[in-house]
C-alpha cells in the first residue's frame, strides 16, 4: 500500500476543509474555479494566521490561479466518495480546452472532515480556512470569481501572464501587506485580529473589483 507523504496529506486535508467550509458558508456546489481561487487566498493570506502555506508560488495564468496538484487531491476526494462531481464540461476557447465542474462534499466527506478537525494540527488549519472562506463568501456573489484576479499579489500589474509569482518573502506578499495596512484605521494599535484583516481585505478587493467592472462598463 502506498503511504501518502506529509505534503500530500496536508493537501488532501486542505481540499477537504475547503469543500466542507464552503458548504457551511453557503458556497454550494463549489465550482472548480472557486476551489482554486479559495486555495490561492488560503496560501497567500496564511501569513496573517501564522499558518504554513501549501505553496508560496503560483503561475500567473490567463484563467486565474490554478494548482494542478490540488486538483488531483480534489479528484481523489471524488474517487474516494468524499465529494461528488457534477456539471462536468469541457469548454474550448482560444486558450485551449479546459475542464469545468461543480464539486460538493458528501456525507462521508463531512464526517471525515469532522474526524480530522479533532486532530490538533488540523484543528487550527480548518479554523484558518474557515475564516478565509467566511470573509470570501461574505462578498457579493457576482464578484466572487474575480476577487483573486484583483488581489494585490496576483493582480500586480508588473507581473505578466506566464510569470511565476513568488510570495515566499514577506516583502513580495502584497496581499498580506495590504491586509496589515488596515491596522492604521483601528482605534487602538494591534487590535485587529487576522480574521478582521482578512475580512477588511476581501471587502477592499470587492470594492476595486466593482470599480474595475464599472469602468469597463
Amino acid at each position, binding site marked *: 500500500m502506498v503511504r501518502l507523504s506529509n505534503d500530500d496529506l496536508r493537501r488532501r486535508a486542505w481540499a477537504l476543509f475547503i469543500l466542507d467550509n464552503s458548504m457551511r458558508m453557503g458556497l454550494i456546489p463549489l465550482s472548480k474555479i472557486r476551489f482554486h481561487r479559495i486555495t490561492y487566498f488560503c496560501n497567500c493570506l496564511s501569513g496573517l494566521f501564522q499558518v504554513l502555506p501549501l505553496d508560496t508560488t503560483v503561475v500567473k495564468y490567463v484563467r486565474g490561479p490554478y494548482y494542478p496538484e490540488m486538483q488531483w487531491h480534489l479528484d481523489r476526494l471524488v474517487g474516494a466518495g468524499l465529494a461528488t462531481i457534477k456539471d462536468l464540461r469541457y469548454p474550448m476557447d482560444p486558450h485551449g480546452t479546459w475542464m469545468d465542474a461543480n464539486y460538493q462534499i458528501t456525507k462521508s466527506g463531512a464526517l471525515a472532515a469532522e474526524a480530522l478537525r479533532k486532530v490538533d494540527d488540523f484543528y487550527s488549519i480548518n479554523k484558518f480556512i474557515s475564516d478565509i472562506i467566511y470573509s470570501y463568501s461574505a462578498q457579493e456573489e457576482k464578484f466572487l470569481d474575480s476577487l483573486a484576479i484583483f488581489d494585490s499579489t496576483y493582480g500586480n500589474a508588473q507581473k505578466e501572464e*506566464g510569470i511565476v509569482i513568488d510570495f515566499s518573502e514577506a516583502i513580495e506578499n502584497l496581499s498580506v501587506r495590504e491586509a496589515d495596512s488596515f491596522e492604521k484605521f483601528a482605534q487602538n494599535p494591534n487590535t485587529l485580529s487576522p480574521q478582521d484583516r482578512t475580512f477588511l481585505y476581501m471587502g477592499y478587493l470587492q470594492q476595486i473589483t466593482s470599480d474595475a467592472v464599472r469602468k469597463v462598463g
Partner: protein
Amino acid sequence: MRDREICFPVIRRVIVKNYAIFPGSNPDFVLDFHKSEEKPRQENGLSHDFINGVTVIAGINGLGKTTLLNIILRLLIGPLDRSKEDPNDIGSGVHELRTWRTPRFFSSRVPDGAVDAEASAEIWFGRDRIEVTRALANLQIRSLRVNDQNITPDESQYKSAIERLSGLPDFVDFHFIVRNLIFCLEDRRNIIWTASGQFDLARILFAGKVAAGFRKQLDDANKKDGEYRRQLHSYNRLVSDLERERKRAAVRPGTEAAIAALKVALGETERRTMHISERIDAISNEIRACRDDILTSRLHLETKVREHERLEAEYVALAFPSADTTIKYVLSHLISSHKCAVCGSADSPILEDIKSRVEAGHCPVCDSPPSSQENIVSGEKVSAERVNRAAKELDAARRALEIAEHDYHQLISEEKELSSEKKKLQERRREQLHELHVRGADLPQADEQIRQLEASLELASIKKDQLEDARSAAFQKAQATLNVIREKIELSHSKVRDYFEIFVREFVAEKCLLSMETRREIIGQSGSGGSLQFPGFQVTMTSGVFEMPQIRRGPETVSESQKEFIDLAYRMALIATVSEGTGGAMIVLETPEASLDTFFINSAGQLLRKFADRTYIDGENDGMGNVLIASSNLNAANMIRALLGVDDETTEVSDRVINLLELAAPNAMLKAHPKEYFAELKKAVGLLDGNA
C-alpha cells in the same frame, strides 16, 4: 516620477567636408525626383537635412554607409569610449570614459589622412539646439554653438551643454544611451537580453538624479570588492605559508606538532566550507529557475490533459451512456492523466489496454472490435486521429515536465548533499577549534618563524575583516539606492510594457509580453556575499508548442530574428515612454535585412515608419517628430522600399534618401556596373517600376 525631463538627441543636419570618401555630387547618379525643380548639387562633400520620419542611407558595399553612420555617432559622443566595455554585455563596463579605441578610424580610410576633413551636426534636444563641428582626423571640436550662442570649442563645454540639454544624469550616461539605445549598428548589441545593460538603461532613463550616484556606488562597491579580494589573496598566501611551516613542525613529535597539524586541517576545513557555500548559492538560483519551469510546464500539461480528456470523455459517454458523472470523469481522467482517482495509483496495469481499446474503437468492457458491436462506439464518432494527435501533444507535455522535474530533483539532491557536507564540515570545524583550544593550553613556545607568520596573519586578518566590512557597507549603500531606483522604474513599467506590446506584435507573431522581475546578480569577482537585487524586465512568449507564454531567459531561447526584433521593440518602447511629451527622438540602425523574409520586411518597414511618424500614439501623430536613420544595401531593394513606404502613395521620399552612389567616391564595383546599380536604386526609391 522622473526628476528632470529627458530629451533624446535628434540629428537634424549633417555636413561632411573635405573627406575623400564623400567627394560631392556625381551627376551620373542624381535621382531625379522632381524633373522641373533642379536640386542644387553638392559641390564638396555631403550635406543632408533630416526631416521627421525615415531617412535611408542607400548604397552598396564599400561606399561608406558604415563610415557615415560612424561620423554621425562620433559627432554626438566625440573621441570617447566607455572603459572596460564588452559589446556582448553592455552594462559590464566601468562608469567612466576613456580615449577612443580606434582613433585612426576616419583618417586611415583616406590617402590624405583626413587632415582637412571635418563634419558638422545640428543636434536638437526638444527645443534646444547644439551645433558642433569636429575634425575627422582626431574628432577635436572646431566650433560649438548652443542655442545660437558661440561657446568655447572644447570637449568639456560640449559635455556640460549635453548634460544640461539632455537632462540625463551625466555625459557617461549620455554616451551609454547614444551608443547602446539610439544606435543599433552592425555589432548588434543586445539590450533586453543582458541583465546589466537592461538595468543600466532603465536606471538612466527612469531613475533621475538617483541614477547618477548609483553607478559610482556600484563602481565603489566593485573597487572595495577588488581591494578585499587582493587582501584575501595576501591573507591566503600567509595562511599557506603558515601551513607549510606548521607541516614542517608537524613532523616533529609532541604537542606543537599536533597543534600545527590541527591548524592545517582546520584551514583545509574552512576552505572547503567556503567553496561549498559558494556552490550552494549558485545551485539555489538554478533551483529557482528550474522550479519556475516546472510550475509553467505543469499548467501546460494540465491544458493538454484536459484536451485529451475531453475526447476520451466523448468515448466514455458513448460507452456508458447511463453512468453518472463521477464514473465518466474518473475513467476519462485515468486515460488522459494516467492517474486513478479511485485508488490514487499513477501506475495502472490496465491503462495501456484501455487506451488501445479507445484508439481502436473497441468495446471498453469486452474489447470487441467495431465489426462485432451491435451498438456502441465507432471511430466515426470519436475520431481516432483527433485522439491520437491530442495524445501525442499530451506525451510531449508530459516529457517536458519529466525533464524539468528530473533536473530539479538532481539539483535538489546535489544541494542536499552539499548542505549535509557543509554541516559535517561545520561540525568538524567546531571539533577542531575545540581540540585546538584544549591543546593550546599545553603549547610550548612556537618557533620564531611560525610566530612571525602568525603575527602577520593576524594583522592581515584584521585588515581583511575591515575591508570586508567596507565592502559590505558599500554593497548595502548600493542596494538601498537600488531599492529607490526599483520604485522609480516600477512607475514607468506599465507604459514600457504597453508600448512594447504595440511594437513587438508587428514583428513577432507570437504573444510576447514584458514583466518586472528581481534578479540577484553577483557583483565583483569574489562571489561570496557580494550580490545585489536588480530590478529588470523579463520576456515571456508563446510558441508553436507552448500556448501559454513561457519565460525566455536568454537570446538562445528565441529564434535569431525574434531575438533582434524583441530587442528593437524594447528599444522603441523605452524611447517612446521617455519621449512622451518631451519632443522627438531618434534611432539609427543598420538594417537587419538578412534575417527577414518578404512578409516581415514589409511589416518591419511599416513599424519603423510608424515609430518615426509617432503614429504609435493612438494611431495619430502627436505633432512631434522622430527621426529614424537606416542604412541599407541596394541588394535589399525591398527593404529600402518598405522603409521609405514607396508603395504608400502618401509618402514623399525625395528628401528621405542619402544617395551614396551620388555622394561617395565610386569603388570598383560601382565603376564596373554603374547602370545596373543606378537602376536598382531607382527601383528601390520608386522611380522605376519593378520590371524595368
